């Protein structure tokens, strides 16, 4: 697909008149790319995706998906998109093939055509052997693959995946990544996915947007974002760290930036391996003892930390306060977010 697949301008969703879930978001997804929407739980990822797939009306702003406006021409959007929601939505009482055929009927695809497509897709996701088994007997990975098949039945131009690997084991996750890559390569499909696994975004996505508290903080290709950090990241702790040695470290050549975070120094540095001894010497010369030093090549984790000031993992773990906001958001969304999180 040529041109822009998704154009979002000032998209905003306010729940219950005061809970701003998505706050004037702007971004563009180019045709044929895999676009990752990154952020912690409750950042507004699902709310954004729900607006783009026309099941939630925006409070403000607009979005165009494959040249159809999401509010004025919702059916036009629905026709050209495929959706794999966070939850397992396949019907447990029906068989695999019955589920795929049901999806085909919802799109109004003629029977002879849909039968052909269903077989094709089940083969693609390697479920042909199990197609006549009830979905209740499927494993988590099989169910995720069945969701993929259902979402692809109308041959979508833009494929939406909401946390496609949430709760999957390592192998199944890798297999899902392969399917996603395949869809892009073979069919030139545009893929919009949300995730809070940074390594997943790094592996798969051509471009990512980091969203936090309903606002997009940064957009770009993972490599560009990592490079924009301007070097390696060094973390240094010193004994009896009451005295601030930031200025001391800053004087070392090739050190670009020093931040004190949680009692340790986060140092942005060019040529980390060579600069590290110089930094240690400089700190020692003033009588401080280095207790810990680590050097990392930038990953999306660092990018995330850089732009949000928090680690995405810490956020997952420290749930106080945040959980309250999430609860409020879920209540406002009704059951839309229910059942998806482990």
């Amino acid at each position, binding site marked *: 697909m040529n041109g822009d697949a998704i154009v979002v301008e000032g998209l905003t969703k306010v729940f219950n008149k005061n809970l701003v879930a998505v706050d004037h978001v702007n971004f563009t997804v180019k045709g044929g790319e895999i676009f990752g929407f990154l952020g912690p739980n409750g950042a507004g990822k699902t709310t954004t995706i729900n607006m783009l797939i026309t099941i939630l009306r925006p409070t403000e702003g607009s979005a165009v998906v494959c040249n159809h406006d999401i509010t004025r021409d919702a059916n036009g959007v*629905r026709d050209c998109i495929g959706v794999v929601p*966070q939850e397992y*939505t396949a019907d447990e*009482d029906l068989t695999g093939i019955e589920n795929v055929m049901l999806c085909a009927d*919802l*799109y109004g695809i003629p029977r002879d055509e849909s039968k052909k497509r269903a077989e094709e897709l089940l083969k693609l996701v390697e479920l042909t052997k199990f197609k006549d088994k009830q979905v209740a007997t499927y494993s988590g990975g099989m169910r995720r693959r069945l969701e993929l098949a259902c979402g692809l039945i109308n041959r979508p131009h833009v494929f939406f995946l909401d946390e496609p690997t949430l709760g999957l084991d390592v192998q199944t996750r890798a297999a899902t990544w392969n399917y996603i890559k395949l869809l892009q390569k073979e069919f030139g499909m545009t893929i919009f996915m949300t995730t809070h696994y940074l390594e997943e975004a790094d592996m798969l996505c051509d471009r990512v947007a980091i969203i936090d508290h309903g606002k997009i903080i940064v957009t770009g290709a993972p490599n560009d974002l990592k490079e924009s950090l301007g070097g390696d990241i060094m973390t240094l702790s010193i004994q009896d760290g009451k005295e601030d040695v930031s200025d001391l470290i800053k004087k070392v050549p090739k050190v670009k930036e020093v931040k004190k975070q949680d009692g340790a120094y986060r140092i942005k540095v060019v040529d980390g391996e060579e600069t590290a001894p110089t930094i240690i010497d400089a700190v020692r010369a003033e009588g401080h003892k280095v207790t810990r030093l680590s050097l990392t090549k930038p990953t999306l984790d660092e990018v995330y930390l850089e732009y949000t000031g928090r680690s995405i993992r810490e956020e997952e773990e420290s749930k106080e306060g945040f959980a309250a906001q999430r609860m409020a958001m879920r209540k406002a969304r009704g059951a839309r977010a229910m059942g998806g999180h482990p």
Partner: protein
Amino acid sequence: MSRNNGNSKNALHGLWALTNRDLKKWYKNPIILMLGIIQPIIWMSLLGKAMNLGGMFTNFSPTLPSSIPLQLQEQIKAAMSDLSKQAMTQIFGTADYFSYMAVGMMSFVVMFTAMFSGMSMVFDRRLGFLNKVLSTPVARGSILMAKILSAVIRALVQATIVLGIAYVIGPLSVGPDFTVLNLLGVYAALFLISMGLSSIFILIAIRSTRQETQMAVVNLLNLPLMFASNALFPASLMPEWLQTITKINPVTYATDATRQLILYTVDMHQLAIDFLFLGAFAVVFSTIGIVLSWRYLSK
């Protein structure tokens, strides 16, 4: 892969696919189907057979003063038995309570099926299925109509089973001019009431995410709907205030229509009133349902 979908769409697009899904879930689950059949059997055999109202008079042997000659005593007893039959026929419309309540039972199963139809809406929302459907080009009205339609079909199948069972464990005292045409009328009446009732209960569920709420509503409403009607007992014997309720209770009209068509000699005037009420009830609530589904299915 070609991009040509060749989709054909109209206002009812997706209706049958969704209805069929609900029906499949139903008949693929033999336990639910069995329970749905066993329940009316229990009611009919317990209530219908145990509450032998007719027998109350015919099996009654009064002790009459010995001053009355024996011959006269026999005559009195015979007269009493005759009177009781008359009383039953006048009040229940038939001398046999089992037949009376067996037909009421048809409204009962229809009512129950309709009441629980809202549940599947709640589940579809909870499990994310509703969201998936909403992201497809299915007409919004179809989503609600499919729920109503599948409830109606289930209700009619169950009502047929009840009628069959009543006929088998009977005897069912079928009215003098019963024809196949009457049976069609019975289905029409049950169709209308199940359409109206399931619309109401699905409407209650349209924004709900908790099956507990839905259960509470069903529990709250099933007794009044059942007993403040003529399904089990004639409304004419009820106190004035209760009669007023029975007059707005659609179950009363459905039951009256089915009784007239199966058990009684049809009173065309009364039957017309029944159908008018049921028709209005079905049309009003299903219309409200469709209008609101456009508004409330997506926020």
